[in-house]
């Protein structure tokens, strides 16, 4: 379902040279599979997910999703494909603060191929236990509730692939465990593959399919000089 080959990405480093962040020779994920990647901060995990999501354009290589090479697509088509096939759960949730819980999910749907399906959106929010918070704004929710909105939004377009970038990074241990269980369960129910990146051993321990990101990312193996996706030190 997801096949990555010879994927590379580099950024201009603060010193002016180019720092290679991602060099992945081969990576594959089957439909419905759930896989976790372990990696330290700055190892290029977020960049890798952004490349898969088409948010970043790769310097080289292939990212095939259902046989379509994202890396070869122009930006507009990458956007369309992302809306169509990929759900993204961010570490900081990235909810739209000026929109209600329901609107956050509906907006996620509106860019997808099926358009807005209010019944499905409400059902998803019910599934994550937020049916009584539809009209609330994110700032009126607890961190755990915001995380659940992010999960519902990521699944709104019935994606084939859900990318989760440190999805429990802002939660306490109990909430993190519950949230992770929810993500995995909802992905399973929706038939979506899950690719999760984290540096939290507590989270990673719950995955049978666990892989060290440094093993697949040659750039990370070369040493600690890696620069994160935003070009600054300290990102994931």
């Amino acid at each position, binding site marked *: 379902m997801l096949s990555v080959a010879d994927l590379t990405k580099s950024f201009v480093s603060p010193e002016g040279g180019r720092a290679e962040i991602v060099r992945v020779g081969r990576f594959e994920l089957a439909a419905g599979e759930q896989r976790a990647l372990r990696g330290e*901060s700055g190892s290029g995990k*977020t*960049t890798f997910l*952004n490349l898969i*999501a088409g*948010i*970043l354009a790769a310097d080289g290589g292939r990212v095939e999703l259902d046989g379509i090479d994202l890396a070869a697509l122009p*930006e*507009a088509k990458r*956007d*369309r494909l*992302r*809306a*169509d096939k990929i759900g*993204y759960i*961010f*570490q*900081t949730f*990235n*909810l*739209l*603060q*000026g*929109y209600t819980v329901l*609107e956050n999910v*509906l*907006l*996620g749907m*509106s*860019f*997808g191929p099926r358009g*807005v399906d209010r019944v499905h959106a409400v059902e998803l929010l019910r599934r994550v236990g937020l049916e009584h918070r539809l009209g609330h704004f994110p700032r009126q929710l607890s961190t755990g509730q915001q995380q659940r909105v992010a999960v519902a*939004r990521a699944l709104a*377009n019935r994606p084939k692939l859900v990318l989760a970038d440190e999805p429990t990074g802002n939660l306490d241990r109990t909430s993190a465990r519950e949230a992770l269980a929810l993500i995995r369960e909802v992905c399973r129910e929706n038939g979506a593959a899950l690719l999760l990146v984290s540096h939290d051993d507590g989270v990673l321990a719950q995955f049978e399919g666990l892989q060290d990101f440094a093993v697949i990312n040659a750039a990370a193996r070369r040493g600690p000089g890696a620069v*994160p*996706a*935003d*070009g*600054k*030190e*300290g*990102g*994931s």
Partner: protein
Amino acid sequence: MTLPLIIYRSLRQHALSTLITAGSIALACGLLMTVWVVKTQAQAAFISTSTAFDAVLGARGSKLQLVLNGIFHLEASPGNLAASDYELIRKHPAVKTAIPIAVGDNLRGYRIVGTVPQLLTNVEYAPGKSYAVAPGGKVFGEAAREAVVGSFAAERLGLKVGSTFQPFHGLTFDEKALHEEVFTVTGILTPTNTPADKVIWVPIKGVQAMSGHDPKAANDVSAVLIQLRAASAGVMLDLMINKQGNRMTFAYPVGAIMADFFGKISWFDRVLALVAYLVALVAAGSVLASIYNSMSARQRDLAILRALGARRRTIFGAVVAEAACIGALGAAVGFAIYFGLLTLVAEVIRAQTGVVLDVTEGHAVLWICPLAMTALCALGGAVPAVKAYRTPVAETLAPVS
């Protein structure tokens, strides 16, 4: 659903700046529309009011002054005409109607004009429209101390049929200059929406023989309002009176004199228009600045939308549409300002000149201005939209460590 929701939420999030910007656009739109409509309607009303008579004959002086004094009851008379001059023009074969008027008195600021009853009974003040005295009244007698009061003046002065008044000397009100003669109101004119509505009409003999007026000028008139039998006669009389003579002025044709007057003050229109254009530009600039300044705050939202699958052109369109919405909102409120201003200006013009502007009359500027303003705002929105278009998604969404 997407675009309207994005626009609505963005406007809500920046409600204060939206309202301030829309307010400045409303002001610009309201001013522009008012300036245009007042200019156009006032010009048309003044020119159409001057269709009743072809010419005005008066003492040697300015043609415009004669027309303003004789037709619009503004300005002072440039001097008197001898009764013999009036008789000469009245009997001229080219003249169809000659109505003498005498001015020089007022009633609490409203001008008293002496004339002959024929003005109110035989003359059409506009094609197909004649003066009419409201039921229960009648036109004054030729030699009586009687008056017919214009509708606006009657309303303001509280005069009714049977009311009496003593005129004040001069064209401006001075309570010490009271004449001793007492006039009785015999009729109120039905509204004509012309300067006649703010005039108190009395027999010409009444003004000529008023106590305190120069007895030597007892038969003089201030001006003669003339209808010609043919337009060619006007050219002939113009040659005879203005070019060959040197005692009188023949203001002909009245419509052209008014049009010329408006032509001379057109620079004022242009200044007003320029001010209105500048206000519109400033308003569009404020839309640009308002959205542009909020771009940093909303960049994260835009990046999130992009990450959710929104295309660059959707983001660009949302920002431009938001700017257009602010423009449209301002234009809509601009209509309220327009109606308020126009009503106010129309009341002032009516009180000053008797000319009535129709606040409900349509004009092309009423749709051109809101559309142009909305388009201008959308154009202003294009600048921040480009910034939004270029929002780097990955960089913007990177967690702050």
